[in-house]
């Protein structure tokens, strides 16, 4: 059953096997002896100072979320705007409803205080 499509199939299988195999072999082979040295982060041989993970405040994430949502929705606005003339009234109403729903979302976010900086 090796048609040229089959190549893709094999490739995919290989990908999965590699990914799965990596985890499995690592899990099987890796020795479990851990010393204090080993658990330290590797930083060009010198000991690291301070937390190796610089963390953002979660507030950034909240903003990121809101932005993400409202940003992606514009995807629907572009094609509609381009074809506005030919689509006509019904599409317009639909878009209004769509935006209305988004506005409710915004309202909700506001009410829940997602827009305050804490």
């Amino acid at each position, binding site marked *: 059953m090796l048609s040229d499509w089959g190549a893709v199939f094999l490739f995919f299988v290989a990908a999965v096997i590699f990914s799965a195999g990596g985890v499995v072999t690592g899990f099987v082979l890796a020795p479990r002896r851990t010393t204090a040295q080993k658990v330290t982060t590797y930083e060009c041989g010198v000991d690291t100072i301070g937390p190796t993970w610089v963390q953002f405040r979660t507030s950034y994430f909240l903003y*990121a979320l809101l932005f993400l949502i409202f940003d992606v929705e514009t995807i629907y606005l572009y094609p509609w705007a381009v074809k506005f003339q030919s689509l006509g009234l019904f599409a317009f109403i639909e878009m209004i409803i769509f935006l209305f729903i988004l506005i409710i979302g915004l309202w909700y976010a506001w009410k829940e205080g997602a827009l305050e900086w804490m």
Partner: protein
Amino acid sequence: MLTLSVSLHHYLILAAVLFGIGLFGVLTKRNAVAVLICIELMLNAININLLAFNKYITPNDFIGQIFSIFVITVAAAEVGVGLAIVIAIYRNKLSVNLDEFDWLKW
């Protein structure tokens, strides 16, 4: 296959590779956010698929494109929820390391 012209296969293989990479990330990354990103990779691989098929199989209508738009938005929504959960769980446990979430088992 040796011609340099880009054919459907190339797209498909690219998509497959991308999917595989994302998959690998999902299976290996220990950080929840990273796993989310890897899922995004997989979804983008699918978008490539859809668009390639749209270009080569059904060039006359836009099914694939529309589909990919939907996929993008839905993916965004999913990531949104995912991040929200990550934030909540971080507030709760001060960690997003997936290995630490195994109270629920057996």
